[in-house]
């Protein structure tokens, strides 16, 4: 009841023929740009989007105790039966694990116990990491639809795909409800459902914290025009660790337990859906210095900040 009351939905009309609806979900500011003059429709779409975002957050957040993720992460080695939506995401996670040859792994979250990316130089010792690696690896769990069995001590975290998935889900809902062009932007991960009536897309300033040589002065954000499809960004220049004069980003290699070296500060990818763009951006980050080469091979538009 407390949280329900606090879920604000803001709506404002802009001069160039669209409504902007804002709310907060998934620890991010969420925004919808809806090309319509119909306030009722805009409000309706805003509510649907908010409810769907909160539904997904509620269902897949690893910070709640009343959802399937909590059940799975506290199953003590017993099999947990999951319903279709969770099963779909697990299938997808398995696919991404195989596609990335083990680099994308939803079980790697336990490594976070060793690594704190707060900018200080605290580096865990190798023994701690080796110990934690016993609980990391998709190959160590059993996924036989619809039963998931984790070893005691293992955990899964769908945070790596949850927000992008929510953006696509909301986009799908919007398309079922309206023919208007809608831009769905959840903290920089976004989808545009179709071109605007003018044929133009939406101007999006992607937040790319670009730092100069001293690492202090953020430069201007990049403006992108998006007409249709998804855009997602991986990486955060403010979360890093320094060791032996080397700078490690916060993306961890689930095989070694160490941060990926020479990873870009951030990678932004445009693709057919936000989920796909997000996976490509994450896989590029995991490639470290080969990020650009990887993205070139995929023939997708991308923006890398190093």
């Amino acid at each position, binding site marked *: *009841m*407390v949280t329900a009351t*606090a879920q604000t939905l803001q709506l404002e009309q802009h001069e160039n023929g669209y409504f902007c609806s804002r709310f907060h979900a998934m620890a991010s500011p969420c925004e919808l740009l809806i090309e319509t003059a119909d306030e009722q429709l805009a409000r309706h779409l805003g*509510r649907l989007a908010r409810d769907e975002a909160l539904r997904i957050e509620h269902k897949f957040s690893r910070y709640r105790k*009343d959802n399937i993720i909590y059940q799975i992460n506290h199953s003590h080695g017993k099999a947990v039966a999951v319903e279709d939506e969770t099963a779909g995401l697990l299938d997808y996670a398995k696919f991404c694990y195989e*596609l990335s040859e083990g680099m994308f792994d939803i079980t790697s979250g336990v490594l976070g116990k060793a690594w704190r990316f707060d900018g200080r130089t605290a580096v865990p010792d190798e023994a701690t990491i080796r110990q934690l690696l016993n609980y990391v690896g998709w190959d160590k769990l059993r996924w036989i639809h619809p039963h998931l069995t984790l070893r005691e001590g293992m955990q899964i975290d769908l945070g790596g795909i949850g927000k992008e998935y929510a953006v696509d889900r909301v986009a799908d809902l919007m398309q079922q409800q309206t023919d208007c062009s809608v831009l769905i932007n959840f903290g920089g991960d976004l989808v545009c459902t179709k071109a605007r009536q003018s044929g133009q897309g939406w101007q999006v300033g992607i937040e790319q914290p670009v730092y100069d040589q001293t690492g202090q002065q953020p430069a201007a954000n990049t403006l992108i025009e998006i007409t249709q499809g998804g855009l997602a960004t991986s990486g955060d220049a403010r979360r890093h660790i320094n060791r032996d004069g080397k700078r490690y980003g916060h993306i961890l290699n689930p095989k070694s337990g160490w941060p990926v070296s020479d990873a870009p500060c951030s990678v932004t990818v445009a693709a057919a859906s936000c*989920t796909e763009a997000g996976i490509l951006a994450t896989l590029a980050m995991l490639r470290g210095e*080969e990020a650009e080469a990887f993205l070139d091979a995929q023939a997708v538009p991308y923006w890398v900040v190093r």
Partner: protein
Amino acid sequence: MQLKKPKPIRRLLTAATSTLLASTAQQVVAVEKTPWQVDSAFLYYSEKDRVTVYEPVVAVRKETGDDEFIGVRLVLDSMTGASPNGAIPTDSPQTFTAPSGASSYSIPAGETPLDTSFHDTRAAISAEWEVPLDERLKAVFGGNFSKEYDYTSLGLDATFSWDLNQRNTTLTTGLSVSQDQINPVGGVPTGLTSVPTVVGVQKSTQGGDESKDIMGLLLGVTQVVGPKTLLQFNYTFADEQGYLTDPYKLLSVLDNSGQLRASDPYVYEKRPDSRQRQALYAKGMHQFGDDVLHASYRYYWDDWGVTSHTYDLRYRYELAGGRHYLQPHLRYYLQDKADFYHYSLDDNNIPAYASADYRLGDMSTTTIGLKYGLVLGESHEFGARLESMQQKAEGDAPFEDNTAVIFQLNYSFLF
């Protein structure tokens, strides 16, 4: 050094992503459907040696549009048992005529006189329509009707809630009106006239039926204090006009020696025909982890001289990740009597208004209870509540203490 040339994976990824997004599309549509929410409950209330109430309730609610709801609620009350008639216990047996005047009942010496003819069934229906008037303004319009053998009530209400301050503050105002009609068995007795003690003797009446009009006002503010804390303050005012007396309640009249007077030992009670009631209410809710504490206090006063304090505390313990919960409940109610409350009357000094109804006397009630809830999936919830209530005389009026047991089962589901 480049170990190997990156493989193009995009076609595979696009296909897998499409599968993911398509496979759940239907489910999302299902979430959008607005089912009927059904809340059903069965309440059992039983006072020791006195009244027993069985009360089934069914309420349905459905979203009919964007944040727009309709709801209907049906309640059936079935009361049986005995209720104090207002007379005091005496050293010798007492005989009373039933309200109809056609029969009588006797009470042994030393026992509180209870009217055993007390039984009734009440049916009530209420409906409400909740509709957003503006992005931040919500209205609820309601109507209710209830009927029992000798009583009919019809009411209308409207409540408006206005969200401010990024929905962290909600102002609420409500208005209600109702009209009640009473047709007591055997007519409306004239207040403070003698109660017939012999079957067949007519009581003095002031007509066959009476009515009362009630107007109510509510002003409230709800404030989100933090992500886990909510505070609520209400002020309520009600104005009642008309027949506010209980036509079945009487008082014992004592002579100089403190004994029931020889002739006409009982008179019908009589209350003023207007009453202004006011109350201030404060409630706080705080979340501790998954648990929630509810604490409230209410101060009530009216122009009959009744004042009361109510303290209420509930704590919801979440068990097994929110699939079960236990909620202990503690409530204490302390009341100061109405100006015209009398345990019994003095033969030489009959006031203009008088009632011996213990509900208007100095008294307290203490309630201790426990509720268990079981969440069965997303759309079914079961609950059971057991409470014990102790009622005590607090002033110098020695009316008998009373205990009651309350048991409730409820089941909610979507369909």
